[in-house]
């Protein structure tokens, strides 16, 4: 993330996403595969880190083995194998959705994980209760804890979609796209941009 200035002098926060070049590595059609889809690949990897099946698959599109492969159903059916798709499919000022995996937070308590406010006060004889979850249910009836009770546990590493982010700027020569605000995940993580 960084921030840029709008023409009227306002500072606005943006995230830089390198969106492409994505190579079309397979075109699935209704006749051959039962459904129509476009398979896009992004990010080079070395041949020695790829298995033979990958090398052969990507050589059909006459490209190096790629790190990430994603299928898009019913999308851009006029593209053929080996073509590249870059940021030029987006326009400045357009709204997009960004899907990513959030940062892992490890084992967290209920205050951070579920927004509980803790139990009791800081003083008046209380101690060790400020981040406690409180009661988790009745005693002899129902004599169990209900499923889905919000408790402490692993937090983060969730798939999250942020909707309605504005495309602030596009750099076609570097395939950079600037979207307003933040996107899920750590620096360098992979995200999916949907129109």
């Amino acid at each position, binding site marked *: 993330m960084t921030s*840029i200035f709008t023409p009227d002098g306002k500072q606005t926060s943006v995230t830089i996403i390198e969106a492409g070049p994505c190579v079309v590595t397979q075109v699935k059609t209704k006749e051959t595969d039962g459904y129509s889809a476009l398979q896009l690949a992004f990010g080079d990897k070395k041949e020695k880190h790829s298995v033979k099946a990958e090398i052969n698959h990507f050589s059909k599109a006459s490209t190096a083995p790629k790190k990430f492969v994603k299928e898009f159903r019913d999308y851009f059916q006029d593209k053929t194998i080996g073509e590249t798709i870059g940021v030029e499919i987006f326009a400045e000022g357009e709204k997009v959705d960004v899907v990513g995996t959030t940062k892992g937070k490890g084992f967290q308590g209920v205050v951070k994980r579920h927004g509980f406010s803790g139990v009791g006060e800081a003083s008046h004889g209380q101690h060790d209760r400020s981040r406690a979850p409180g009661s988790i249910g009745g005693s002899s009836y129902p004599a169990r804890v209900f499923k889905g009770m919000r408790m402490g546990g692993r937090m983060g590493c969730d798939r999250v979609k942020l909707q309605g982010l504005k495309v602030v700027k596009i*750099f076609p020569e*570097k395939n950079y796209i600037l979207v307003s605000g933040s996107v899920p995940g750590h*620096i360098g993580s992979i995200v999916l941009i949907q129109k």
Partner: protein
Amino acid sequence: MSAAVTYIHEQLTAKKQHPKFKAGDNVTVNYKIIEGGKERIQGFRGDVLKIQGTGATSTFTVRKISDGVGVERVFPFLSPNVDSILLNKVGKVRRAKLFYLRERSGKSARIKEKRM
């Protein structure tokens, strides 16, 4: 800072030549105000409390006493609304962040001038 961040600021952010200053210096920041359709320039003179951040997002805070009330303003270095910065006095201070000035007033809030 990553190469991508450097690249987009080379393209988008206009570099400006301002005098070098640090915390404790007395500066005048001439900044643009847009009222209605008109644009005018107003000065803000005070002591620099801190310089914060790196690269294109770095800012500095200026504090002045206006009618007995302390006023602080944060300016981004590369804001297009900062027209110019004048360095009035170079201060002699022993800290990079002068938050202790907020608790002081009058004589004890003065900063010694550095003889150049």
